[in-house]
């Protein structure tokens, strides 16, 4: 169904004119974007069951209509300052492609922001951040209404090396 949905979305927004649609959200007062085709749903934050022996940024797992879905706290993932979850805190459920298969996971962010059409040509390659968000997660940068939007590479949030690193860290 998800594929169907995204197929439909794709046909509506199209990709032929060289623009992509991004869902943006706030994290530590910065605006980040996910490729909207990867977003499955947005849901309010509810508790997650912690999973022992996992990195701190894994909040735990939730029950998403019968499947077990891990939840990543994006602040912790980016080693940002922690803030208590509030009323705007949401979980963006995304499809991540890693190791030749697709996983569904939830990403906790401060708040959802907007949906933008961003021309591929307008994307700039990521500069080398001093500290802050590691450049490995960033696909590109763009400016919308004079605001900076950081476009994220979803697949890097939990890619093969990450999994291995996690493995090594826990053993």
């Amino acid at each position, binding site marked *: 169904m998800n594929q169907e949905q995204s197929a439909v979305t794709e046909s509506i927004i199209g990709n032929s004119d060289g623009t992509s649609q991004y869902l943006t959200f706030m994290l530590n007062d910065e605006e980040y974007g996910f490729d909207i085709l990867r977003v499955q749903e947005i849901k309010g934050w509810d508790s997650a069951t912690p999973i*022992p022996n996992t990195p701190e940024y894994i909040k735990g797992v939730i*029950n998403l209509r019968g499947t077990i879905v891990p939840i990543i706290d994006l602040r912790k993932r980016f080693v940002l300052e922690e803030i208590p979850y509030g009323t705007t805190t949401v979980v963006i459920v995304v499809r991540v492609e890693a190791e030749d298969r697709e996983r569904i*996971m939830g990403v906790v962010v401060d708040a959802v922001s907007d949906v933008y059409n961003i021309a591929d040509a307008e994307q700039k390659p990521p500069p080398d951040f001093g500290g802050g968000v590691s450049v490995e997660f960033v696909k590109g940068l763009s400016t919308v209404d004079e605001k900076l939007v950081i476009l994220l590479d979803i697949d890097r949030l939990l890619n093969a090396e990450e999994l291995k690193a996690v493995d090594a860290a826990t053993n």
Partner: protein
Amino acid sequence: MALDLDQFKQTFFEESAEGLDIMEDGLLNLQPGSPDIDLVNDIFRAAHSMKGAAGNFGFNHVVDFTHALETLLDEMRAGSRNVTEDTVSLLLQSVDCLREMLSVLQEGTDPDESRSVELLQQIHALLENSGDTPATEAVAAEVPAAEVTGWKILFVPNPDLLRTGNDPARLFRVLKDLGTLTVQVSTEQLPSLDQLVPEDCYLSWSLTLLGNVAEEQIREVFEWVEDDCEIEISPLESAAPVQSEVSEQPQRSGTDRRTGGDRRESGGSKEATSIRVGTDKIDSLVNMVGELVITQSMLSQVGRGFDMDRLDALQNGLVQLERNSRELQDAVMRIRMLPINMVFSRFPRLVRDMSQTLGKDIELVVSGEQTELDKTVLEKIGDPLVHLVRNSLDHGIEAPDDRIESGKPPRGTIRLQAAHEGGKIVIQISDDGAGLPVNKILAKARERGLVEPDQTLSKEEVLDLIFQPGFSTADVVTDVSGRGVGMDVVRRNIKALSGMIDVESEEGVGTTFTIRLPLTVAIMDGQLVRVGTETYVLPLVSIVESIQIENQRLNVIASSQQVYTLRNEYIPIVRLHDLFGQKPDSNDLDKQLLVVVEGEGKKAGLVVDELLAQQQVVIKSLETNYMAIEGLSGATILGDGTVAVILDVTGIVHLSSSDLGAPTDLQPTDPQPTDLDHAA
């Protein structure tokens, strides 16, 4: 109106397959000399049922065959025939033969009757031997039917006719269908009202039936009441001589049925499979649907004239609905889960037959046969398992003399076990046989160019070579397993199920194959425990006992590992709170509970705050969207929709004991902790 019963063939085949399993099981458990009569009865009944239904489809070979078996079994249960090893063997062969006959009928292929004919002869020979020949069914003598113009029938029923459920009026109605009937009732025997027993029949009848009716046809109508009445049937005066037409009729219809049956058989095709589900599972489904209906009606009530005051009710209803649908989903999934015994059950027979053929003495030990797995997996795991067991029988276990020579008991053992472990189903086939010849395998691999001459391999790598295509470890290709299906096919089949197969072997000691299959869905009996604020699930099978911790039984060994003294055993203590970063209710261990668990032969005591409910849980993989975590075998969704992780006892024991030698190796005879130092 022609009613076609062919649609029940599939049911018949399925039921017969079950019946044959029952027969086989029973025969394998039958003690020659002192048979269990109940068991013989079960076997008899299975054969009997098959015979009954087979006749309806015109499967006459099956009828003849089961009839002979039935006769033999009948003598056995009546005690007039001894149950010998030979008889049992003959019966087992017959079960195989029937299985073949049925599969031939099912697939519509040409039957090879030579085997069944031979077996049938053997059975008949056996039956004649005891002088107890099966009662050959008397062929009804052809009664010449007369073409008559009519019959006169005098029918005087006994008073208690009605109590047998027969009603004269209904019999007459059937007669009326044969011709023109005139009925005259006689009330002569009717007593006065004060003497009348209302349940008795006092009337008698004199009937005239006009038409071309055979006496046989009339007798048939009264067949059931013959003994409960006086009946006289005589032709009316002008009875004419016989014409053959009528008497031929039933015979022809008999032939028709047979050919009809044959035709239908060949047209038979493989039909959709079905699944046999325990009524308890169905009942729980029905209950859930019931709840769903209640929720639905509640919701539609809320929906009618909705206002914001009823938002709570709506939300509650939706939560309820979600729970209902989830439970329903789980229950439906559960239907697909079947015990692995459905595959394991064929092995006692296989081992028995093959050890006879090979002249070996082999015992089969099966455990974990109730472990459930998905039907699809179950259907596909059978062949690889058969191959592995055959391998053990054929190449693993040595001949009795060789075993004695190497200081082993003459009787070899093959173990077949299944368990849920680490979110997977683990099936092990192990034998205490000769083990795999590492050097020979390596030499052969070099010879075949699978390994470079100068390449050095670890033992594990060498053993893994047996899974290479076309590689057979057997020096001689024996009749049994050398049929071109190699271990490569086994591995391929298991990989197709997303599983893994490994081999461990020690020359002279034995070989163990371990198959791990993932469980997309699996059901487990779980014990819910509370550790801090979290709920965890422990597999019920791994729990040995749960006890209140007593401080004086706590000891520390190797300066760090805490152990608990329990009946001369030292059980390492695992503080789940530390492992999972949870806060215990109390820092005093003696205010907590110790759940003693066992995994892969190692025991451990898990400290928990509270034991919660025991319930069946659906195992969900953490790997689907995340990854495997050591110490966890998956997760499950509890009744309130939250997720609880399932602990993998083996992993937990491993996690906690990795820094301590081998705690369970401690087998002190004296439970004094001072004695432990040398052991640790």
